[in-house]
């Protein structure tokens, strides 16, 4: 009995020390982590909606028993020209969070996958960007410096995500062939491709159902 108390006390001391040190690190890093996440979000927002000059604060609306988040996008005159919608779905093996930018008619300006942990080489290819240079060019580039102005400012959007731009809700279905008016699945990763497309579809239809009224153009559902 005495032994058990002693062991328990020792473990308590260790746990207490661990807790105190973790609290310290958490206090030190909390703000930087929040700032880094905010920066990643802002960069993503601008990348997929180049026409917008600034974005509003995060707003929420209820969907069933959950809440969905969105941001308003404004042009230089402060006129609302569209929205960016956050939506998370279950992918093949991980939750996938997608940011979808739409204009006021519901046409997609662009999408960006903010987080996912799908199978490397298959599902994770939704975030893959084809290499711009070969290894040999890069090795040669160590000798000859590439001029700074040649380098792009932001990394290009992955081809899978780029194909959403310009599409409307009715075109959001997944096919396996190259196409212009649907989404082409990543080879061998149909489930992840479907999940991303579903995230975009649900985000838009939820938004028009609960927040904005669908515009009266024939392309809307």
């Amino acid at each position, binding site marked *: 009995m005495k032994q058990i108390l002693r062991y328990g006390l020792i473990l308590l001391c260790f746990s207490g020390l661990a807790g105190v040190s973790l609290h310290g690190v958490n206090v030190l890093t909390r703000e930087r982590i929040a700032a880094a996440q905010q920066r990643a979000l802002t960069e993503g927002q601008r990348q997929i909606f180049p026409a917008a000059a600034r974005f509003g604060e995060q707003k929420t609306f209820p969907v069933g028993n959950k809440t969905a988040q969105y941001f308003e996008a404004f042009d230089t005159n402060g006129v609302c020209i569209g929205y960016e919608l956050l939506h998370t779905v279950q992918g093949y093996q991980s939750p996938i969070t997608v940011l979808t930018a739409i204009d006021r008619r519901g046409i997609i300006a662009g999408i960006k996958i903010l987080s996912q942990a799908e199978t490397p080489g298959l599902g994770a290819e939704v975030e893959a960007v084809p290499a711009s240079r070969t290894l040999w060019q890069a090795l040669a580039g160590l000798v000859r410096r590439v001029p700074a102005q040649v380098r792009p400012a932001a990394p290009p959007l992955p081809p899978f995500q780029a194909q959403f731009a310009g599409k409307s809700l009715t075109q959001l279905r997944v096919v396996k062939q190259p196409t212009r008016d649907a989404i082409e699945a990543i*080879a*061998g990763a*149909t*489930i992840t491709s479907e999940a991303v497309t579903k995230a975009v579809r649900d985000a838009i239809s939820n938004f028009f159902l609960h927040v904005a009224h669908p515009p009266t153009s024939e392309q809307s559902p």
Partner: protein
Amino acid sequence: MARLLHVSSSPHLRTSDSIPKIMWTVVIALLPLCVFAVWLFGWYAALLIAICVATAVLTEGLMQKLRKQKLTLYDGSAVVMGILVACNLPPGISWWIPIIGTFVGMAIAKHCYGGLGYNIFNPALIARAFLLAAYPKDMTTWISPVDATTCATPLGILKERGPGELLSAYGGKLSLYKHLFIGNIPGCLGETSALLILAGGVFLLLRGIITWHIPLSYLATLALLTFLSGGDPIIALLAGGVMLGAWFMATDLVTSPFTRRGQVVFGIGCGLLTFLIRRFSGYPEGTSYAILLMNAATPLIDRYFPNRIYGTR
């Protein structure tokens, strides 16, 4: 202990069959399929078969050299493996992809496990499974034997669009059965003609290379399960690779059980798995995975269905 294990498992009966004789008989049984594939899909099919056979033979030679073993290139086992890999390829695949697959099948699935007689898995099926995982798009792009455009296999249509579409695509039930039986349909090089596979299988049966236990229990299980689940058992048997698998790959002497009872269990397992994969997975066809999984179960089957020791009950 190690010395004891050198004794091969029963039966220790002597027969006049040698490895070359068995293997070259299998090659003869496979030849009609190859000729039909060339007639159906053109000379490119002949090139693919030649590439697979050449890669298999060269890899076998290389591995035997590396492992400092006697070269056995004339026993025909590499030729059989090469032809079977080719039979499992879509006819329009890029010529260099089969080289990778055949090399992996021969070097890893056969020689890393100890060579002929020691491999757990059928090397030709490992080659197919590896390529299916490595180049999923190439391995599932089919060309039509009529006009060489890309199209879907009968099982692909069945999976994606349902049985009604399949019937209308081939103009009615009888016409569909006839197409599937003769084999002028899209599919892997050697899997399309049920007629020629049956002919080859019966030839092997008559020559005593294989017995009826695995093919019949395999096909009967698949047909019964398909019928019970409301599908068409004739389509299930004739379409896809199950004929080729049941007669030529599940019957591989090395990777299937020794005893008759074990072989029936093996066949039933293959049929059950093929049915489950076709019915419930994302793949239209499951023959190769079904046989590979049962290959893995073979040692277990041999353990639970051993030979009766002579003189006991």
